[in-house]
């Protein structure tokens, strides 16, 4: 009897919470269908060049993800499995950069990008994003590497592999779950970034999806349903990525986030 009571209480609490969480999402969808229904979506796709922006964001995001994995995974391996002097202080320095807000370094980053001649070039976003997003990837990946036994490395060395081979043949393949997690978070961080995207991509044909809402505001638009339809569209790829990766996500986060 007492158990039943608790169960009812638990289930109703769960339902209320899920209800509260879904209300804003419902509101977003419902508003996006007002006035012209799916016509809002059609307009967003055709009128405001959304396709081109999606492609831009896609290119930048995929490149950033690949680059983040390429720089963070070997580093995570080294911090976890190789002893070298200055290791702790180096790791701490890299951790500190987790806490740097993009807005506080905007001006100098623009200077660098300009110096490299990258304005209106995908590289202008890919490289700074990699720098800003790889520390978090490093933390997750190192946590994961720490859980892999170091004996693997030792026996590989005994078998005549060198350290590089051990990394590529043994550790990198084992790190697949955490690579998936990093993929999702880097994808999110890069796709959703606004400030640099606005500052570095001046040409309309080079703009990212996060600058889309501006297109609805610069005309003194009053088309809120149209804006909301565009908002749904620019977030859709993220939802698809999340659902695709959901299962792996579960395994990878454990390993990654538990220890840091």
């Amino acid at each position: 009897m007492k158990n039943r009571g608790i169960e009812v209480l638990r289930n109703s609490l769960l339902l209320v919470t899920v209800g509260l969480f879904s209300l804003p999402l419902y509101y977003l969808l419902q508003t996006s269908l007002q006035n012209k229904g799916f016509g809002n979506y059609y307009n967003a796709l055709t009128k405001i060049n959304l396709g081109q922006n999606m492609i831009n964001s896609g290119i930048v995001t995929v490149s950033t993800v690949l680059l983040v994995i390429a720089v963070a995974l070997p580093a995570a391996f080294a911090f976890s499995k190789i002893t070298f002097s200055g290791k702790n202080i180096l790791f701490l320095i890299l951790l500190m950069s987790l806490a740097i807000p993009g807005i506080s370094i905007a001006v100098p980053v623009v200077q660098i990008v300009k110096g490299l001649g990258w304005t209106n070039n995908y590289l202008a976003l890919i490289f700074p994003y990699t720098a800003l997003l790889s520390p978090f990837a490093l933390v997750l990946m190192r946590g994961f590497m720490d859980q892999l036994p170091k004996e693997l490395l030792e026996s590989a060395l005994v078998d005549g592999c060198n350290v590089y081979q051990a990394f590529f043949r043994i550790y990198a393949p084992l790190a697949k779950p955490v690579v998936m997690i990093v993929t999702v978070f880097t994808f999110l961080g890069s796709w959703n970034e606004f400030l640099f995207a606005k500052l570095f991509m001046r040409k309309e044909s080079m703009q990212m999806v996060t600058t889309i809402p501006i297109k609805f505001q610069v005309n003194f638009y009053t088309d809120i349903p149209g804006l909301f339809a565009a908002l749904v569209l620019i977030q859709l790829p993220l939802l698809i990525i999340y659902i695709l990766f959901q299962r792996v996500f579960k395994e990878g986060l454990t390993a990654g986030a538990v220890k840091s």
Partner: protein
Amino acid sequence: MHKNRYTAFVFVAPILIFFFVFLLYPLLYTFHISFYEWNGIDPIKKFIGFDNYKSMFYDPLFYQSLRNFLVLCVLVITIQMLLGFLLAYIMRRNSKLFTVFKTIIFIPVILTAIVVSNIFNNILAFNDGLINTILRNIGLDQLAMSWTANPNIALFSVIAVVIWMGTGFSMSVYVSAMTSLSLEVIEASRIDGANRVQTITRVVWPMLRDTHFSLTIISVISALKIFDIVYLLTRGGPMHSTEMLSTYMFTRTFDSYEQGFGSAIGSFLIVLAVVITIIQMRLSRNIQN
């Protein structure tokens, strides 16, 4: 463990290059500018030593921003973690319905601040916002409030939005941490006569100590960096009741043309972040030993 300086260097060099070029230089630049009086545009900057820091430490707004940040930090982290933990625990068994629920709760995590602010600016509006309309329709007119224009409430509205955006993340971390705990432990404690509440508080919660820890670190850091959502929802107002260090920095840098002063706030923010990170790492080491 393998020891080799040069091998290690090969592995670590790429990430360090990114760090040195795109983060270290900008950081040094920010520190440098903080010693100047500069409108951010003129070619001439005036060196004024520590004056920006001095006026920052005398500015009541600086302390108000710090206070607001602390309130936000404590409330967001506590609620987000407890809620995420409970949701993960309740939905620990695999079921189609739970997967749908978990997806719904996770979706806000993937939304960008511009999307979230557009949704909530409409939901929280006083006259025709969704919340007040619902409240008035069910006869609770006196609960229909000025969610973002009342200085006593605005910060909590912002906090609620931030919690909505972040709970999915802590829930997912707990979900995966719990799958690694064997469910047998939970069942065993049940058989031992522990009731449900005791199982949670005495068995499951303590076993996830490491998870609580890493979640706290991640949450504190993201709270420090919070900018977009606050700026887009309230611009730090009304009457600075939702001012964060980052919005304070932004206003001074770009609205009142005080790049030097803004850089001083930025430098303080970075130092604060470093100190917090170091403290947390120390704590983590103590706990682990």
